[in-house]
């Protein structure tokens, strides 16, 4: 394909001493990386370690500040994705870059040189040929908006192959896939490797590294740590290199007596403004002293479940019974149909850590104090807010949760992802909730921060509160939850005991409804 490639070259890509800074932040500090021909290299590192930045330079999104890139032993300057494709490099981004209203085939040829007409038959044939060679399952005439996430990913991969990419970079490709889809993707990757393609897969999941890669390159805080052969390493070693010290990898699941039923949801149905049914007849119970995990493929109704219970989204049917103490007596009240401000007015403290931390949970441009008062500022008597009163509370929170911040007046957008989440979760816990709903509480967090969050959630459970944990990593969900509710296409496909079921069973429930419950206790 590339006339300049010499047959004896073994290195597909070599990156030497790459440095990239964004203002004062050094995203990559003299990073070196070698990708051999026909191998699968895992690029491992925590969030913020500079993996994606490094790959963005290889695929022409950024230009390095200094350092050299060699492709097949030739020094090159990659100034745009077009340059990258000319060198046979294609990247599949974490957030797909597809046009929704076009078909798979149209997206694949989009932006390619050609005449003024599009020969769809020829393109479709070529797409089918590529799909057949590597074992993809695709309909070239299907519109993107009709596709599942995994199908969209397939389109992205074929798009890269169609453009003649020999070097493929995949950024966290399994984040959006079910276990079954992941297995399928890995089979395709192996097939591509067998056809001589060189592949870099960005990930922070150790299990996947061990399963698919030939070698692992590890980055930590923008610095290059090492490259090791996968066969000669262990999970524990990799974690140590990634984090910089030894960490315990097990997640605790303290045993607590099951408390009262705090939340009792039945028949919950939610239809979006566009008329799409997002939740259908959902029922769930949350008990004190228990963590209820919620599993499901991305977009199965998790967001709607959280937002309907917390009164942020209107519902079409169903009841949400919330048990709380009012004036010394315990009452069970139906809060279905109440808006968030009504719920707050009733003195119900339903804590919610939303998925979109800086777009919903916190105000990015405000400091910690102003963010902490967000949910309780109405408690101030009169027209004014007495911020002084909250300073000791905030200082206490910073100390207890080890929040790293230059000071109380720093806008939260300047904090790292882990610290942002600690501020958000810390504030919600401050309100002494009886029910705590967390959507993807450890997404994007480094390992140490994640374990800190798990400990905080377990502490809430031990206080006798009900915790609902919406998760994406099944391993984590199975380790921390007392029960797991599985969502599929907006419906509950079952509630299982994680101690008595397997990842595969739950994976199956994520994709189909109507099978009998597996090992359920509820």
């Amino acid at each position, binding site marked *: 394909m590339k006339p300049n490639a010499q047959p004896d070259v073994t290195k597909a890509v070599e990156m030497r001493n790459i440095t990239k800074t964004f*203002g004062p932040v050094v995203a990559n500090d003299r990073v070196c990386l070698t990708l051999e021909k026909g191998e699968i290299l895992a690029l491992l590192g925590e969030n913020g370690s500079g993996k994606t930045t490094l790959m963005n330079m290889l695929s022409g999104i950024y*230009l390095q500040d200094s350092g050299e890139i060699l492709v097949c032993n030739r020094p090159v300057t990659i100034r745009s994705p077009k340059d990258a494709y000319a060198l046979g490099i294609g990247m599949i981004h974490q957030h797909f870059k597809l046009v929704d209203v076009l078909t798979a085939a149209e997206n694949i040829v989009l932006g390619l040189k050609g005449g003024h007409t599009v020969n769809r038959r020829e393109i479709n044939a070529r797409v089918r040929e590529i799909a057949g060679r590597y074992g993809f399952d695709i309909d070239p005439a299907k519109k993107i908006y009709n596709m599942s996430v995994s199908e969209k990913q397939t389109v992205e991969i074929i798009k890269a192959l169609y453009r003649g990419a020999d070097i493929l970079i995949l950024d966290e490709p399994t984040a959006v896939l079910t276990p079954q889809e992941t297995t399928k993707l890995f089979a395709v990757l192996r097939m591509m490797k067998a056809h001589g393609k060189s592949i870099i897969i960005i990930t922070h999941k150790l299990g996947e590294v061990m399963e698919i890669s030939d070698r692992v390159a590890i980055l930590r805080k923008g610095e290059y740590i090492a490259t090791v052969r996968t066969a000669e390493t262990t999970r524990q070693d990799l974690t140590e290199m990634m984090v910089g010290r030894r960490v315990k990898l097990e997640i605790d699941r303290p045993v607590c007596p099951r408390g009262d039923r705090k939340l009792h949801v039945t028949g919950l149905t939610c239809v979006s403004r566009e008329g799409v049914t997002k939740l259908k007849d959902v029922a769930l119970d949350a008990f004190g002293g228990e963590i209820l995990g919620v599993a499901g493929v991305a977009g199965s109704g998790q967001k709607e479940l959280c937002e309907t219970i*917390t009164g942020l989204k209107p519902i079409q049917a169903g009841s949400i019974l919330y048990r709380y103490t009012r004036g010394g007596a315990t009452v069970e009240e139906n809060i279905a149909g109440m808006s968030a401000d009504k719920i707050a007015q009733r003195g119900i403290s339903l804590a919610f850590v939303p998925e979109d931390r800086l*777009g919903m949970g916190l105000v990015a441009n405000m400091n910690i104090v102003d963010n902490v008062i*967000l949910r309780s500022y109405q408690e101030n008597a009169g027209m*004014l807010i007495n911020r002084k009163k909250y300073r000791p509370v905030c200082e206490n929170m910073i100390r207890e949760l080890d929040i790293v911040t230059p000071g109380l007046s720093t806008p939260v957008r300047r904090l790292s992802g882990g610290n942002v989440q600690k501020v958000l979760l810390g504030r919600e816990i401050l309100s002494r909730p009886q029910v705590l709903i967390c959507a993807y509480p450890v997404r994007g967090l480094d390992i140490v921060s994640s374990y800190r969050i798990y400990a905080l959630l377990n502490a809430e459970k031990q206080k006798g509160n009900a915790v609902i944990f919406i998760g994406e990593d099944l391993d984590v969900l199975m380790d921390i939850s007392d029960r797991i509710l599985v969502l599929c296409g907006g419906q509950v496909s079952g509630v299982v005991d994680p101690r008595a079921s397997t990842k595969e069973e739950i994976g199956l429930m994520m994709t189909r409804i109507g099978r009998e419950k597996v090992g359920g206790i509820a």
Partner: protein
Amino acid sequence: MTHAHDPFVRVVKRTNIERSKVVLFRLTALVGALLAGALLVALLGYDPAQMYGDMVSGAIKGFIGVNKKGVLAFTNASQATIKIMTLLLVSALGLTMAFKMRFWNIGGEGQILVGAICSSYVAIQFGDTWPQWLILPAMFLAGCVGGGLYGLLPAIFKARWGTNETLFTLMLNYIALNFITYLQYQPSWQITGTSFPKIRDFADSTQLPGVLGVHIGWIIALLLAVLVYLYFAKTKQGYEITVVGESANTARYAGMNVTRIILRTMFISGAICGFAGFLQVSGADGTLTTDTAGGAGFTAITVAWLAGMNPLLMIVYSFFIAILERGSNRIQTTMGIPKSAADMLIGIILFFMLGVEFFINYRLVFRARHRKEEAAA
């Protein structure tokens, strides 16, 4: 060889620029603006030094002193400047209420005018019969409510149907302006005994008392700046506005009633602009004309942005722009510089003042320097 295709210039975001450097940049921009303005005027065949001299003396000559009657007062030159400043400051404070909420209220002009119209209605109807202690509060109230309702209108449409507030408020300006033209032909408003389309002068009782030679509005404007500052820094409502502006989603999540906050804030924003209209008809002009707002609703946008939405800084910037406006009027009479050229001059100065923000936020790295930096690293 890798650097052969390095881009010629890169734009790099600055972080943590020192305060002294910001001041230096702003001063440099001011000097640059004056030089560019001088060049323009010189090209047109006038003497730049004389022009700048005339501008300053025309706007603030003597500034304040004891006048012929032996009373401490602003000089004639500075009186006009203070009046312009008052109008700009109050309008900018009104607009800031909306801007903090990221509600792009371009309708300050219209809200000023509707406020002025409502105040004028009270003045014309009751000016001859009511005593001053009653007529002034009545005019004040009418101006604020009128401006407030005129500001509320686009907010209702935005909250209900998601209409674009920028276009909506902009169009409302022209309706208000042309309504005044209509009123000029109405017998009940027109100067009596003539067919000339002009609204009659109001009774003396409708006029605000003066302090140091300028109507008391300028003191109220300064107080209002402090009030608006405190409103945002200390009150629940101010906090709510900021949260809604940053993210309506977060506000809803926090249990705020976003629609109510938008409506309330736009009413206040319009009411403050309407108050500016009241000050014009009852303090500065003594009647209602199509020039009552005189573009202040638009210039106030510049004031608000130059001050970075800081109400206290708006005092400084409204004074600065008032000097420019007054001075540019002055040079039209003393030196015969055409209005268009004077407007260009103001445009150039504002362009520099706003343009410098780019250099405060970003820096440029050129290819040669980039290589040098890299070699050093």
